[in-house]
């Protein structure tokens, strides 16, 4: 194989209460796509943050081209040819798409921005990643998926030798994922090395050459993709055999909980459907089809133009988040960082924020009861945190997602839970735990709406799947009819 481009040895990194990395080693050859695999909180993001200069290792050494490299800032990393797409997006919302792509390296003539070549070059990149937006649009108008693509474009533009991708596909739909893989293969041809982090094993088998597995901050092993299989990888990840085949036994029952009639907002048009107690209804569709918009509208976050929403047979006269919550509707947003997390609050406070009323004596919070219930959820969802008092910003992405799901599991009297991308950033093992928890929830009579870009996730779990196209419902498929091809057929037209 090619020569070793980047090597990390004995990397150790401690955080308060957590040993994120413990003498980890990692090797990257020229022109290879190398996957980093591990459970949530295994230390993947931490490792790559060290490689790209966000953190500095407590001990250990990084070599680039066999020379020791000191990476103390993002700039150092960029100078070494290492560019990174982080798990949490880093987009300057008020700058244009083009400026975001060439962030930090705007084409200039003697200090003046060369607008023409900026737009032209940006256009080239956008074409390459198949993103159809005007390069001069402000980035804040883009959906999270488009922003994700933008991040990819950004690092392409750097002409780096190493591109690190931390869960680039977590909010992409199959179409964009295909585009991304094409890009990755092309980069590989150009002898560019890629570190690829994902929880989707299929993807890893599709594009990666080698796989390094981390567990609890420790190096477990490295395998050639061709010489391993799913089961083995999962065993390396979780340290034991784990069943990842999940198929829910569908059984619709119960009375109608939710009745949506001709719901229309700026983005969705005349959407009507019903959900029964204990039913799990999935929403599928391409990026921008309006899945998230239904979720937002139902929870009162977007202005409803017309149409009605009835819960338990009673039409809601005003759909606002507060009403919704009081009526027993819960919502897990798609964009964790922007709409879900209270970064400066603790894990415990993040979990109990919607149910805090249940833990009061008079006006006073019964912290003990709050702690006990939260602790149960931490155990059930296996949330990796030193304590409930840890600030949530210090948790790994997947664990943050679990905490937000737990927010609604704590809520009593929940009738309907709307989850937009439930397993975004969640590792394989935990994914199935979450499926189990959700179907348990359904069994207890809660109706669930699941918006997801992973078709498999929907077909495994849902009683019915509603396919969206351009803001409208294009098909409603029941569990038997729904599969990859039928869904795609209705998605694209």
């Amino acid at each position, binding site marked *: 194989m090619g020569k070793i481009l980047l090597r990390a040895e004995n990397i150790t990194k401690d955080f308060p209460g957590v040993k994120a990395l413990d003498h980890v080693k990692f090797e990257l050859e020229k022109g290879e796509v190398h996957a980093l695999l591990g459970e949530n909180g295994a230390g993947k993001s931490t490792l790559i943050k060290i490689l790209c200069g966000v953190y500095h290792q407590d001990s250990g050494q990084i070599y680039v081209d066999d020379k020791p490299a000191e990476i103390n800032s993002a700039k150092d990393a960029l100078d070494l040819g290492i560019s990174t797409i982080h798990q949490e997006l880093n987009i300057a919302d008020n700058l244009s798409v083009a400026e975001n792509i060439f962030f930090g390296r705007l084409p200039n003539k003697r200090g003046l921005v060369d607008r023409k070549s900026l737009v032209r070059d940006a256009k080239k990149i956008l074409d390459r990643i198949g993103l159809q937006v005007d390069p001069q649009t402000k980035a804040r108008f883009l959906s999270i998926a488009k922003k994700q693509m933008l991040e990819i474009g950004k690092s392409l533009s750097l002409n780096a030798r190493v591109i690190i991708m931390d869960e680039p596909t977590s909010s992409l739909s199959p179409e964009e994922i295909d585009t991304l893989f094409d890009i990755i293969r092309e980069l590989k041809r150009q002898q560019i090395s890629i570190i690829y982090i994902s929880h989707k094993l299929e993807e890893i088998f599709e594009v990666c050459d080698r796989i390094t597995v981390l567990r609890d901050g420790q190096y477990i092993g490295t395998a050639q993709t061709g010489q391993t299989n799913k089961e083995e990888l999962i065993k390396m990840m979780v340290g034991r055999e784990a069943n990842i085949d999940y198929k829910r036994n569908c059984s619709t029952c119960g009375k109608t909980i939710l009745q949506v009639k001709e719901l229309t907002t700026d983005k969705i048009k005349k959407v009507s459907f019903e959900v029964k107690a204990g039913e799990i209804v999935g929403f599928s569709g391409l990026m921008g089809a309006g899945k998230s918009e239904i979720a937002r509208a139902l929870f009162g976050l977007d202005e409803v133009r017309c149409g009605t929403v009835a819960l338990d047979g009673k039409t809601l006269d005003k759909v606002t988040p507060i009403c919704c919550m009081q009526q027993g509707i819960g919502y897990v*947003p798609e964009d964790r960082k922007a*709409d879900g997390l209270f970064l*400066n609050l603790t894990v415990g*406070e993040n979990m109990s*924020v919607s149910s805090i009323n249940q833990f*009061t004596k008079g006006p006073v*919070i019964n912290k003990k009861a709050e702690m006990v219930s939260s602790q149960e959820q931490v155990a059930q969802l296996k949330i990796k945190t030193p304590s409930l008092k840890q600030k949530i910003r210090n948790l790994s992405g997947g664990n943050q997602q679990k905490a937000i799901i737990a927010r609604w599991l704590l809520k009593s009297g929940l009738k309907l839970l709307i989850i937009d991308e439930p397993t975004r950033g969640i590792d394989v093992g935990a994914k199935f735990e979450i499926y189990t928890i959700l179907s348990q929830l359904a069994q207890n009579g809660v109706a669930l709406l699941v918006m997801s870009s992973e078709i498999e996730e929907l077909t495994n779990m849902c009683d019915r799947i509603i396919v969206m196209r351009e803001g409208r419902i294009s098909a409603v498929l029941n569990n038997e009819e729904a599969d990859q091809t039928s869904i795609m057929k209705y998605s694209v037209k």
Partner: protein
Amino acid sequence: MNRIKRGWKKISEIDELMLIVALVVIIIIMSLMSEYFFTGKNLMNVLRQSSTTLIAATGMTLLLLVGEVDLSIGSLAAFSAVIMVDVMNMTQAILPAVLVAIGIGVGVGLFNAFVVTKFNIASLIVTLGVMTSVRGFAYIYTNAIAIQNTVDGFTVIGNGYVGPIPIPVIIAAVLFVLCYFLLKYTTFGRYIYASGDNKNAALASGINVNKIKTITFVLCSVFAVISGIILTARVNSGQPNLAQGFEFTVIAAVILGGTSLSGGQGTLIGTLVGVLILGVLDNGLVLNDVSSFWQDVVRGAVIILAVIIDTRRTQKREKISRRLVEQGAVSQ
């Protein structure tokens, strides 16, 4: 032995430790420099003088936590005070007048909150406008001439004692403890932090952010009015130029105490320490007969220094706890 260690560990975990240390250092320096400083009478003076700042700063802390700010508190204190004294003189009774003043506070707070939440505008500019207008009203109402209070007993609010403790100190302590409790132990407090930390997430969690903000604006205004009432009782007259620049002192104290301008981060204990640092400094500099110009220089320097040490510690603490983990000192 072990107990001492544990005690020490507890102390070293206090968020506001460096600020408290700064306060103690200033107190020690002042005591060494002036024999009058560390006397019961003077300390009570310091507390009484700090109490009005503390009351307003308590309200302001809540507001900053929720991610907003109020520059109109000084003007509001003056405006409500002149009307209060006028009403008091007319009715010859204290309570109705005080209620009128508080009513004005509620009104202005509601107005601020309405404009900010309804139109989604930065509170800084809204309350800057209100600050200007309301001060104008205070001058217009009085024609720039203070209104003498004619009701006996009113000054007690500002100058009276219960035992050795000045009444303003008691009022401030009660309000402070109430808010401390509110912030720490009630759902409302939790919602304040959540709304200030991430408004979108708060909405998505079913929190009525606008309601929380409105209540907080009103609380901040009412607390400003209470400060104004005490100041007015101290001067026994309704002064249209009362509390000029008060907003600056109050916000400085709150931020000195570690509360962030961007919401969601801060504690009332920090605010208390911030208020006391400024109060002790003011008092001590005067006792030492430092010229008022040098006072400015020293005050500015101390603010900067105190914030620097406080910030450095917060940054260092992360490192220390990391080392503790290595030594297995922190349990999972």
